């Protein structure tokens, strides 16, 4: 900064024309559609992501019909689906693969990441750091408006000749290189989604580092903010390689290059025209370089939400706050050097496989630390079983199952049998479905009063929680046994193979559970919409929590706080001895 610029700096606080419109004078479009307010953008992200979540779930329900009753026509909607998916009401093999690929892609890139980072992150992080908005409000808006077209391109691929991408969410070439047009749409959509994440992550990091309220040092940040901080770094550094890979695959498909095509491919007894010289494994490296950190992108915000909910409802400080933070940082760092454990079966030698096994075992340690810290936080507590607390509590054992079942997959020898079986499906779904999605529900119930100024209904919430908890285990627990028996994933006909035929009963049970799980989301939807309009009005701090978002009115106005709060203490000062109340908010000064 030059001396001149420094001299100018203080005079230059005129915000005119810098995009921060005065709320009162803004048009409807600027307020609700092309808004630069982080709260509006957060809500936009949340609603969009919830729609995608429901859509991705719906795709799975259709696939589940085929898996329960192979080759039976799909009831009700079988006739409505396009030619690319069904034939005379029966899902085709191509259609099954397409639904599978789109289920994975939609859930990971268009539902959970936008919900966890775009939704919760956008809404809560600036509030929690005591900022009036994100550091770059217009960039924030751009991030949403890049995300949406990406999602729409993905959806549009359902109407393309040949249907949407059908090469799995991993899109391994050469299969994806020789696939139909839907794959091109998938690639273009992904490039949009990645760009959106990059814009968002820059914004998050700058906001968290630069915009903290006075007194809010890094180690006074709530764990949720730390989790978002690490997540943003993962998005920032892990996503570009997939963008590069996407560009290369796009070149392969559009310009006829051979980045991923080796020489002499014979497809359907015909020599393929690609000149060759490429490496199919290159894609896997670039893809998993992203996709393993992506796992932590899915899980870290969830851990953050759960920590907030647990701290507020156990009425005591989180156990081991600093070790939680260090564990999250360490997780983030390590997640970049474990990716090839997804590739053990490609013919990896002993040296490198040992390296990746070691890093994989090492990365399990911080996860154990986080889980232990959260569980010990219950000791000596005064647990208030609110609906968000129930979801957060259920998250812990579910995440534990998901984490533990990663062990046999991370060791090469046991991976030989379990690789690409239903065991893998069970494993990662336990992490993201009863894990992350339960945490998302906890977050929705927890911050709903802040966002709308109204509480959600407890009875409906309890119904939603208990039945979801039962059925979601009914969906994923049998998968471990199916995988043990050797049933492979991505099988259109579940009975085609000897070892899978014997566990078909379990597969049918999974399907029933999945449909029931869908049914018990109805109370949630009713609760969500009814509470927006007619829920019981909420106070500014209904959970009597300590973090900064509760210093703002519910719902917070444009600019968030009446005046920027000053922070006086750490994030989880609950049940401090000698205090009048059992919580000491960060934004209130204590006497003496």
């Amino acid at each position, binding site marked *: 900064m030059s001396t001149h610029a420094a001299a100018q700096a203080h005079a230059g606080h005129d915000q005119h024309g810098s995009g921060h419109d005065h709320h009162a004078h803004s048009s409807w479009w600027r307020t609700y559609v092309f808004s630069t307010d982080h709260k509006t953008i957060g809500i936009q992200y949340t609603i969009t992501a919830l729609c995608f979540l429901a859509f991705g779930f719906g795709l799975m329900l259709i696939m589940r019909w085929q898996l329960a009753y192979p080759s039976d026509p799909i009831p009700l909607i079988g006739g409505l689906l396009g030619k690319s998916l069904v034939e005379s009401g029966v899902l085709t*093999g191509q259609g099954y693969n397409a639904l599978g690929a789109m289920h994975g892609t939609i859930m990971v890139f268009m539902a959970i990441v936008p919900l966890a980072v775009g939704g919760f992150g956008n809404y809560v992080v600036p509030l929690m750091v005591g900022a009036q908005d994100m550091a770059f409000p217009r960039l924030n808006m751009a991030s949403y408006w890049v995300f949406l077209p990406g999602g729409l391109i993905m959806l549009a691929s359902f109407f393309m000749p040949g249907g949407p991408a059908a090469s799995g969410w991993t899109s391994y070439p050469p299969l994806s290189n020789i696939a139909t047009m839907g794959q091109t749409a998938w690639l273009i959509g992904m490039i949009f989604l990645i760009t959106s994440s990059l814009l968002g992550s820059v914004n998050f990091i700058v906001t968290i580092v630069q915009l903290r309220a006075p007194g809010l040092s890094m180690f006074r940040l709530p764990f949720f903010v730390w989790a978002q901080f690490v997540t943003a770094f993962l998005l920032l550094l892990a996503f570009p390689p997939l963008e590069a890979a996407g560009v290369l695959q796009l070149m392969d498909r559009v310009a006829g290059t051979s980045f991923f095509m080796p020489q002499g491919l014979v497809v359907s007894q015909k020599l393929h025209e690609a000149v060759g010289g490429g490496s199919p494994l290159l894609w896997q490296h670039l893809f998993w370089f992203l996709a393993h950190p992506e796992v932590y992108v899915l899980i870290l915000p969830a851990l953050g939400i759960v920590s907030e909910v647990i701290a507020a409802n156990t009425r*005591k400080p989180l156990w081991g706050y600093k070790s939680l933070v260090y564990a999250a940082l360490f997780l983030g760092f390590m997640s970049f050097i474990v990716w090839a454990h997804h590739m053990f*079966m490609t013919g990896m030698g002993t040296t490198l496989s040992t390296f990746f096994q070691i890093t994989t075992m090492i990365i399990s340690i911080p996860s154990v630390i986080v889980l232990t810290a959260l569980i010990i936080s219950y000791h000596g507590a005064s647990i*208030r079983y609110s609906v968000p607390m129930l979801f957060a509590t259920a998250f812990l054992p579910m995440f*534990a199952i998901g984490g533990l079942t990663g*062990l*046999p997959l991370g060791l090469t020898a046991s991976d*030989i049998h379990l690789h690409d079986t239903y065991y893998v499906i069970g494993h990662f779904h336990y992490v993201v479905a009863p894990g992350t999605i339960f945490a998302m529900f906890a977050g929705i119930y927890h911050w709903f009063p802040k966002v709308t100024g109204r509480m959600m209904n407890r009875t409906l919430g309890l119904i939603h929680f208990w039945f979801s908890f039962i059925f979601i285990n009914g969906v994923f627990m049998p998968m471990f046994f199916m995988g043990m028996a050797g049933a492979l994933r991505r099988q259109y006909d579940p009975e085609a193979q000897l070892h899978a035929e014997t566990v078909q009963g379990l597969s049918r049970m999974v399907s029933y559970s999945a449909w029931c799980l869908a049914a018990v989301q109805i109370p949630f939807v009713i609760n969500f919409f009814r509470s927006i309009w007619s829920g019981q009005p909420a106070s500014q701090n209904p959970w009597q929590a300590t973090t900064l978002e509760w210093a703002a009115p519910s719902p917070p106005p444009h600019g968030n706080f009446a005046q920027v709060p000053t922070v006086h203490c750490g994030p989880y000062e609950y*049940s401090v001895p000698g205090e009048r109340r059992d919580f000491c908010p960060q934004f209130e000064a204590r006497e003496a």
Partner: protein
Amino acid sequence: MNGAPYGRWLPWNASEHGGQIDSLIDVIHWFMLILFVGWGIFFVYCLVRFRQKPGRNAAYELPKGAASKYAEVGVAIFEGFLLFGLSVPLWSRYKTAPPPPEKRMDVTAIGEQFAWNFHYPGKDGKYGRLDPTLISSSNLLGLDKDGDPAAEDDIVSPELHVPLNQDVYVRIRSKDVIHSFAIPAMRVKQDAVPGMEVPVWFKPTRSSDEFREAMAREYSLDQPTPLFNKKKAGLILMEDYPASGEPVAHKGDALVNATVEKLLAAGIKTVRAAPRATMEVVCAQLCGMNHYSMKAPLFVDTPEQFEAWKTAQSAEIEIDLE
């Protein structure tokens, strides 16, 4: 090890190294169970004991963390043991010590959408040249029978036959996309990456006959439901029928419609039958629309059966040549 080969937990293991993989899986799962139950007991205790009650506040002082430290260190040590004690040596043995060429049965498995083909070097022990430009629907691998003398006695088969108790060395390749050569019963899995040739090896220790005995079931022939739908395709008889007198159907006969009619005509309504193929080579990596149907039967033959099969295959080749 009784009951059916394929059931709710691990399938029967039919290979020499598979037992070690199974015990590793078992050890890990016991470890997981103990850890989870341990956590669970503490967790449930906390959930009940520390629920909100009027007049009781939460403790601000944090519980001492020694126990958790021990638990974490314990977990880390055990993971280290799993890693360096079990997994790495197993993988290293499995991946770096191929059976010597003179002791092994050598075969190449070539994946394509959506089938496996197996290329045996034949009597001379040499693989014939494969030329992608020669590939056609009658020459699936593009074997150069005219140009390469080593190719003359080569066997190309859609079935994988391996001899019992002998090392099998499989070179895995792919013609088009990535497949994965997987035999659940042998605890074998290896991706078939186009442009690469990666070997795996295993030693079958259980024969197909043994599997078949265990899988044999009573089948009722006069049921109105079709017996030969895709699930039960490939059944063969396990005994001669009728057992006494002149049999109309022999052990090993395929249970096709003609056989069933003959048996029903002879007044036989139930038979013991089992699948002909009791083990399968499947594809474990998504390879396109018919990925699920990409499988090949695997037969673990006794040495006599294996020789007989090879002779029969060579005879076919000679017929071809004429």
